[in-house]
């Protein structure tokens, strides 16, 4: 439906279409210009979504007081004159469709209707209250930038743009959501990210048909490759530096308005085991931490099931002294070891979840109360053995080393699967379970990239940035799993010089 020429009718239509909503503001005024008769105008906007001072200073002030002369030599039509000479706002557009006008009001623009014109002006003076840029909550680092994404898309795009002044950086905006009309931005570097990858992401995004997208989690779950798996095949990050690092590797980022988590594709297990800090500290430290991280994630994954299978199936594999002391402490405990382990692991999950839900100050207390007091009391009461408390504590501590929250979820869930199969089949079961997990991981793909890359299929080039991170001067090429168009990321002259020196000598 097009706008009408008569302003009264337009006002009525808009009011009617927006159900005369209580937060809708209508400001009617007249333009008193010297050369022409009085013109009736109206402003429409949503109350708390625009900056009131801007509306006053940049729209009402010039139109009502400052500008008195309409000069036909300056602009062809009156509406062009207002747009070009009167409004001191950066982004002003014209709109003739009623639907577009309505959507424009909803996104926080001010609509200026002028009597006699079929066109409405959309003036961008968005200004709502939002959370500022804060330090990351789930991916904190010690060395490295401390800013993280916030809810407004504009801020998030700024955070990326500030780090990457590449003119090839593309922010492709897609509006999704039948009712929400939420903005989603597809970010990539043109001439670097593989066009097929971009096309695939775009295709999958455009297929989304939901009411509203409240967080990037919606997008992730709708476009992921395998919804069965406990593992996520899209990487999420609240760190702009991590997203930029992904972009320059040739990956594609998806940012969702109102979500502080950006998505990165393709994502592999390897890429999610890395923390941005690995690249900021020197390589010996980075390698040390990375190796520990890989060991720790394995520990968190198998320790409880290893405990179950050793204690209830193969005690001859425990060193004698330890076996005797475990047997002694388990003596008199009414539950079999697998019940004990499942019980304790479940209460660990309980504590974790409770810690998140409880208000900050109490959250700390629940850790102490739950971990120390209940743990100690359970041992004294003879419900669990002390060695089980150690096992649970180790699992918990090692679990927190995994840098991505989403990935650690997958591992936490599969841990219970391993515990159940170990309590049925012992070490044999644990081996079977691990093989099953390995098989499953090997079948996963993320936008055509194997989830276990670079280990399976083996990519020797990419191995230099997996469990081991090579020093920067050895990372001259981008990782290959992204199929980036430009494989080189560092000048190679240093190595050429070295080779030349070698030849001379």
């Amino acid at each position: 439906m097009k706008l009408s020429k008569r302003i009264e009718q337009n006002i009525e239509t808009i009011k009617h279409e927006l159900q005369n909503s209580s937060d809708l503001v209508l400001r009617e005024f007249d333009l008193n210009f010297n050369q022409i008769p009085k013109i009736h105008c109206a402003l429409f906007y949503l109350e708390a979504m625009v900056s009131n001072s801007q509306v006053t200073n940049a729209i009402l002030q010039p139109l009502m007081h400052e500008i008195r002369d309409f000069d036909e030599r300056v602009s062809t039509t009156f509406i062009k004159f207002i747009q070009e000479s009167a409004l001191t706002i950066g982004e002003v557009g014209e709109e003739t469709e009623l639907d577009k006008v309505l959507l424009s009001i909803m996104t926080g623009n001010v609509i200026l209707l002028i009597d006699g014109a079929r066109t409405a002006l959309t003036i961008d003076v968005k200004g709502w209250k939002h959370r500022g840029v804060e330090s990351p909550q789930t991916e904190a680092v010690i060395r490295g930038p401390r800013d993280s994404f916030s809810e407004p898309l504009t801020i998030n795009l700024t955070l990326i743009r500030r780090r990457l002044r590449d003119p090839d950086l593309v922010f492709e905006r897609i509006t999704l959501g039948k009712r929400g009309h939420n903005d989603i931005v597809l970010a990539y570097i043109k001439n670097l990210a593989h066009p097929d990858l971009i096309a695939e992401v775009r295709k999958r995004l455009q297929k989304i048909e939901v009411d509203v997208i409240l967080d990037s989690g919606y997008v992730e779950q709708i476009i992921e490759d395998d919804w069965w798996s406990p593992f996520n095949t899209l990487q999420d990050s609240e760190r702009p530096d991590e997203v930029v690092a992904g972009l320059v590797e040739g990956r594609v980022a998806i940012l969702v308005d109102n979500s502080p988590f950006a998505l990165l594709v393709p994502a592999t297990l390897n890429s999610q085991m890395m923390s941005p800090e690995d690249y900021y500290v020197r390589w010996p430290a980075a390698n040390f931490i990375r190796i520990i991280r890989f060991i720790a994630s394995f520990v968190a994954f198998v320790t409880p099931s290893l405990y179950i299978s050793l204690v209830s199936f193969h005690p001859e594999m425990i060193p004698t002294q330890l076996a005797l002391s475990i047997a002694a402490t388990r003596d008199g405990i009414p539950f079999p070891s697998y019940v004990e382990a499942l019980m304790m692991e479940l209460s660990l999950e309980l504590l974790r979840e409770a810690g998140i839900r409880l208000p900050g100050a109490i959250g700390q207390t629940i850790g102490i109360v739950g971990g120390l007091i209940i743990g100690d009391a359970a041992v004294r009461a003879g419900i669990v053995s002390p060695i089980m408390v150690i096992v649970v504590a180790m699992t918990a501590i090692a679990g927190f080393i995994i840098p991505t929250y989403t990935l650690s979820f997958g591992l936490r869930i599969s841990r219970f699967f391993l515990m159940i199969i170990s309590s049925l089949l012992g070490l044999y079961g644990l081996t079977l379970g691990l093989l099953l997990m390995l098989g499953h991981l090997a079948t996963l793909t993320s936008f055509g990239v194997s989830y276990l890359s670079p280990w399976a299929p083996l990519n020797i080039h990419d191995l230099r940035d997996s469990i081991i991170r090579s020093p920067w001067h050895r990372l001259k090429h981008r990782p290959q799993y992204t199929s980036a168009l430009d494989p080189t990321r560092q000048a190679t002259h240093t190595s050429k010089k070295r080779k030349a020196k070698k030849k001379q000598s």
Partner: protein
Amino acid sequence: MNYRFRLLIIILLAVISAGCWDSKDIDKRSFVMGVAFDLEKTGQDLVMTLELPVLKSFETGTDGGSSNTKKTKAVISTTGTSIAKMAAGFEARLWRELSFGHTKVIIIGEELAREGIGEIIDFFDRNPKVERRLKLVIAQGEARDIFKTAAVREPIASTYLYQMLEVVTPTTRVITHNFQDSLRYLEHNGDTILPRVRGTDEELIVAGSALIKDYKFNAWLGENETRAVAFIFNTVLGGVITANVDNINYSYAIRKTTTKIRPQLGDNNQLVFTIDINAKGDITEVFSEVPVNITEDLIKKIQAKLNQIIADDMHHTLKKFQELKTDPIGLSILTKRRYPKFWNQNKAHWKEVIVPEIKFEVKTNFIIRHAGILS
């Protein structure tokens, strides 16, 4: 129903119905630290004795302190004709499954060993959960008496004995072979050498060894003979040899030795074994009233004396084996490897005919690295 879901259910059913059969919690098992076998007075039945730790005494923390006064082990015996049957009997008495996974020693009494040890070894060899690092020992006298020993720091005799045989302190007085090694020699030709143990109330004495011939105890070997065997087995990790030069005793501490044994089949099928011993060590003591100036000359003399001592021991021990027509040191294994044809021709009468005819060439090379410093 979805194919994947059906598959999952089938796998789960298979796992649940097939699993758990050998699941037995650690506290529902009885760890046997040591087993002793003796011959009953009548000479018919076996006496099987177990040494079991009392779990409560291993509990640390909560009670604390009083553990010294607690009973730390239980020794129980039964008689019977088959080991499996006796083990089942023990399980009924203890209402716990016997676990041989942590068994440290199997001790066989002298009298029983004379009758044969093959039947006893079989039960443990057949059980895959038995740790192969355990020690097979021959006791002088009754084997079960060993468990009566309660040393102050090691109340459990089995672990005490095991630690001594596991070369915690380097010595040449024992054979450190474990169950697997002993089995290798026994299964080859029925001969081997096992450590000898004797117990008093407060300590165990491990010295010398027992010569097993055709799965039967044959003779005791003295300490010097045992040392020679240890050199042949290449298990010497330390120990002290005393050499007397010009009426002064010099103590030589062995730091590292390597022994190489090579068979050589000469003309007219004469088998010659070259035993090459290289040892490095230090002089740690000069037992003399006046300080002795250790010159290069003296060092050469001591080295020559050491070479002579070991070579003499070696010849003496090997001669004894030849006279007893036994091959406990695996000469047959080496011959089979090097001269399979010769071995196949002679394996039937190996111990009776070939062993007494073997010639031995012993080369010893003892090196003194340093003699210590006198300030």
